[in-house]
C-alpha cells in the first residue's frame, strides 16, 4: 500500500479553504472522489501548474471549486469534448475530467464515447451515484431497474448502461471501476488512470443518500449505510474472474477492467503535422 498523504498537506497545498464547507449533503460521495484525485496528484508529484480539472455540471462537478488548480467548469455533458480540445491544443497539460453519471452518460454520452474512440489522453472520472443529484433526484441512464426516483415514481423500467461496457465497446484503452468505500484502491486507480497514456475511464460508485438512498433503501439510506452496502457488494476483478456469472449478478466488480496501449490521440496527431509539414499530402 502506497503512502497516504496527510490531509493537512492536501488542504494546505490544494484547497482554497475559504470556499468550505461544501454545498453537498451529509454523506455525499462527491468528496471521496476528491480525496482520491488529490492523493493521486500529490503522490505522483505532478506539477500543480500543469494539472487542469475540467468539471461537469452536477453535484460532483462542484468539487473543483474548492481547489487552487486550473479549473474549467463547463456546460452540462460537454466536459470530454472541452478536454479534447484543450489536450490537443496543450498536450503538456494533465487533464482530469470530473463528471456525474448524468453528465457523462446522458447528455454527454456522445462526447464520452468519442473521447474513448479517439484515445485522447485525458482521465475521465465519473461519479456514478445512479441519479441526477443536482436537479433533485431524477433517474439517470445508470439507475438500476425498478428504482424509485422523482421521475420514476412507479419504479423504473429503463435498462441501465453498464458504463464500463459502453467504454469498452467505444474502444477505450483503460477502463476501471472503484467505489467510495474502497478509498485506498480508488487512489491507486486514479493514479493508474492518470498514468495511462491514452483515454482513461474510471467509474466510481458513489453514494447519493439524499436523492437515491432515501427512496431506495435496499442499497442503504444514509451515507454510512450506502458505503456499507458497497463494501458488502463489491468484488475485485481478480476474484470475479473465478466467479460464475450468476454469483456476480448485482455485484460491483472493482479494479482495472481493461488496460491496453494504443497511440494517444494528440501524439498521433503530431504525425499528421509532420506529414503536412513535409509538404506532401499523404
Amino acid at each position, binding site marked *: 500500500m502506497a503512502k497516504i498523504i496527510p490531509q493537512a498537506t492536501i488542504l494546505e497545498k490544494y484547497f482554497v479553504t475559504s470556499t468550505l464547507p461544501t*454545498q*453537498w*449533503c451529509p454523506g455525499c460521495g462527491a468528496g471521496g472522489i476528491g480525496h482520491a484525485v488529490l492523493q493521486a496528484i500529490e503522490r505522483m508529484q505532478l506539477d500543480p501548474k500543469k494539472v487542469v480539472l475540467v468539471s461537469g455540471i452536477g*453535484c460532483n462537478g462542484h468539487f473543483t471549486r474548492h481547489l487552487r488548480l486550473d479549473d474549467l467548469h463547463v456546460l452540462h455533458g460537454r466536459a470530454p469534448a472541452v478536454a479534447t480540445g484543450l489536450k490537443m491544443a496543450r498536450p503538456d497539460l494533465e487533464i482530469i475530467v470530473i463528471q456525474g453519471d448524468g453528465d457523462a452518460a446522458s447528455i454527454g454520452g456522445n462526447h464520452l464515447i468519442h473521447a474513448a474512440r479517439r484515445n485522447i489522453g485525458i482521465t475521465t472520472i465519473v461519479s456514478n451515484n445512479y441519479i441526477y*443529484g*443536482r436537479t*433533485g433526484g431524477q433517474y439517470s441512464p445508470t439507475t438500476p431497474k425498478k428504482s424509485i426516483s422523482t421521475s420514476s415514481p412507479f419504479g423504473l423500467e429503463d435498462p441501465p448502461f453498464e458504463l464500463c461496457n459502453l467504454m469498452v465497446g467505444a474502444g477505450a484503452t483503460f477502463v476501471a471501476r472503484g467505489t467510495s468505500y474502497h478509498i485506498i484502491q480508488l487512489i491507486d486507480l486514479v493514479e493508474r488512470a492518470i498514468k495511462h497514456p491514452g483515454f482513461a475511464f474510471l467509474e466510481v460508485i458513489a453514494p447519493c443518500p*439524499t436523492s437515491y438512498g432515501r427512496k431506495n433503501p435496499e442499497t442503504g439510506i444514509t451515507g454510512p449505510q450506502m458505503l456499507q452496502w458497497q463494501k458488502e457488494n463489491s468484488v475485485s476483478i481478480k476474484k470475479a474472474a473465478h466467479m460464475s456469472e450468476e454469483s456476480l449478478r448485482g455485484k460491483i466488480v472493482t479494479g482495472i477492467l481493461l488496460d491496453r496501449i494504443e497511440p494517444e490521440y494528440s501524439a498521433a496527431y503530431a504525425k499528421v503535422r509532420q506529414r503536412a509539414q513535409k509538404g506532401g499530402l499523404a
Partner: protein
Amino acid sequence: MTTEIRLSGSGGQGLLFIGRILAEAAGVFEGKNAVQSTSYGGQVRGGSSRSDVLISPAEEEIDFPEVMDADLLLAMNQEAADEYGGKVKQSGVVILDTTFVKQPPKTRGRIIAYPFTLKTKERLGSALPTNVVVLAVISQIGALVGKEALVRAIKKRSPKGKDEINLQALNLGFELVKTGVLQRDGDDERELH
C-alpha cells in the same frame, strides 16, 4: 385588504410546507384568494429559505405575489430576523423562534418571541413539526384561517404517516396561543437595538 405573511429561516425548517398549507387552507378551504411564493435558490441543501403567503378576500385579487411590508413575519433564524425585520408594517407582528434568534431585530412591528423548536421537542418528542406549531400560532395571531381549514390542508398535504404528528403540533400551537404563554415585547424597546 391583502394580508402579507413572510415565513423565513433556514432550508429544512419546513417553511415552504407550512406556506402552502396556509395558502391552501385560506384559498381552497375558506374560499379566499391566496398566493404562496418562494425565494428560489440553486442550493441542494441548506442555506436560507423564505416563503411568502398573501391572503385576500375572495373578491379582491392579489397582484404582486411577494410580501412588500409584512403584516406577519416569522423568523426562524438570526439572519432571517435581521434581514426582514425592517420590512414589517407598523401594525405588523414579528414572531421569533428564540431557539435560534438570540438578538431581536430592528423592526417597527410588535415582537412575539418564543423558543418554538425547543418547546416542540420537549412537548412532542421531536423538533421536526415545529413548523406546524408555528403555523398554528401565526394563523391565530393573524386571524388568517380557521382551524378546520388548517386540519383539512394538513391532512391533504402531509406525507404518509406524518399527519398524526402534524395535527398534534397544530394543537400545540393553538394551545400556546390560548394559554398566552407567548411572551410579548413592546416595540419601543426593540427600536433601540
